């Protein structure tokens, strides 16, 4: 089994038992949020990207959030939605991966298993009317097969060669369907980087909750690689010609 970075919660103490007079509360809306995640299949695996902004409503509050993570060695996870719920999910997944490590049976959780696990967590939380306010994109190469799946706060799941969450489903997904669909096994890594950067640039131009500092990741049979945050070249010359609502 591979070495695993363990980040346990600062305190394992349970919160003080709440008074009987207080109601049990559940989240009714996300608080600090991350916007779109974009991902698609290419020749060697899956390419994914998300920016580094944690928005507090309309405010660009946290500008160094990492929304892509590796789960184990061969699975990549991308998140949009509430960041505290995401951190809760991170802890849960770390616990699960630790338990699996402790089994010491030479088995490791593949992408499909992790996908199912996250799906069940999400569906069970929605069934308690206490959802984790996230959309997750799960990617990996499982027994030689490329897996790219989605799960949201209701527990809705689907697998598709191209996935984009949030605003990305309106702005990036049409680009991806046009460029990627049917060519999943042809696109080189170089082209994939260009495609995903085009998508992220479009989102940065038009999504008010997007940010020009992003992380990109790929997952192949060799494992997960996540870049350090970087920025894209942008060109705002066109802005001068925009009058009123015209594009």
């Amino acid at each position, binding site marked *: 089994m591979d070495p695993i970075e363990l980040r346990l919660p600062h305190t394992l103490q349970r919160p003080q038992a709440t008074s009987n007079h207080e109601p049990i509360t559940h989240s009714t*809306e996300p608080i600090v949020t991350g916007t779109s995640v974009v991902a698609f299949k290419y020749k060697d695996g899956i390419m994914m990207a998300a920016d580094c902004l944690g928005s507090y409503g309309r405010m660009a509050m946290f500008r160094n959030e990492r929304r892509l993570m590796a789960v184990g060695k061969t699975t990549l996870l991308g998140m949009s939605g509430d960041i505290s719920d995401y951190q809760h999910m991170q802890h849960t997944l770390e616990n699960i991966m630790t338990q699996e490590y402790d089994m010491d049976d030479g088995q490791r959780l593949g992408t499909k298993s992790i996908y199912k696990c996250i799906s069940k967590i999400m569906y069970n939380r929605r069934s308690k009317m206490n959802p984790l306010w996230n959309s997750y994109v799960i990617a990996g190469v499982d027994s030689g097969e490329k897996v790219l799946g989605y799960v949201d706060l209701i527990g*809705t799941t689907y697998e598709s060669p191209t996935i984009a969450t949030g605003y990305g489903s309106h702005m990036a997904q049409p680009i991806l369907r046009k460029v990627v669909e049917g060519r999943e096994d042809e696109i080189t890594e170089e082209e994939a980087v260009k495609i995903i950067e085009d998508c992220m640039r479009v989102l940065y131009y038009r999504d008010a909750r997007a940010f020009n500092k992003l992380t990109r990741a790929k997952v192949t049979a060799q494992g997960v690689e996540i870049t350090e945050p970087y920025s894209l070249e942008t060109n705002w010359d066109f802005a001068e010609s925009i009058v009123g609502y015209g594009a």
Partner: protein
Amino acid sequence: MSSLLSHEIGYSAPIEVHNHGFSPYVNNEGTSLGICGEDFVLVASDTRQSNGGYSINARRSPKAFELSNRTVIATTGCAADAKQLVEDMEQRAQYYVHKHGREMSTPAMAQVLSQLLYTRRFFPYYVFPIFAGLDAKGKGAVYNYDAIGNIECVSHYAYGSAAALLQPFLDNQINKAHQRGADTTAKPSRAQAVKLAIDAFTSATERDIYTGDWLEIFIVDSEGVHKLTRELKHD
């Protein structure tokens, strides 16, 4: 004052506050149909999954599944609930095999599905299943359900966003309703059933935005379950 009162009573249960703004359901739409033949059944579903609005989540997200060697289930409604329900059914079928050393009969499985739906009577699965298989005599049987487990055995049925488009056509072509001199008891042959399913879905795809992309057809006969796939329009 109220706290004093609470102390006197000694216990008051926490009040469960249900949050507003969160709906646990989404209608991922799509269409399913079942046709019953003499010695076979046919179940067909499109594979488009929508997000409840104008977006297509996935073009190939199947909602019809093989449950055993002689039964299939087709769903419509909330995809998350449907997945849970189908997994429950698979589990119950598997458990029966381990316990009794043989597969559950089709009517028994139909009843299990009804009961599973009813377990969630007050927080229903938003799923409208069509369940089909061969009975003990090898005859075809199609069952349809409402979301809380009401069950009916029918000759043919359509559920989902294009149900209203398909059902009159199937009534006309299978029950031969209004066709003077036609044999209204005759069941369709296998070739006829496949043709009807493809025709019905091709038509539904023209008028219903939630139906399209691919059609999966399952045919169950004495040899087992056979699967066909046809392309529908992607628009």
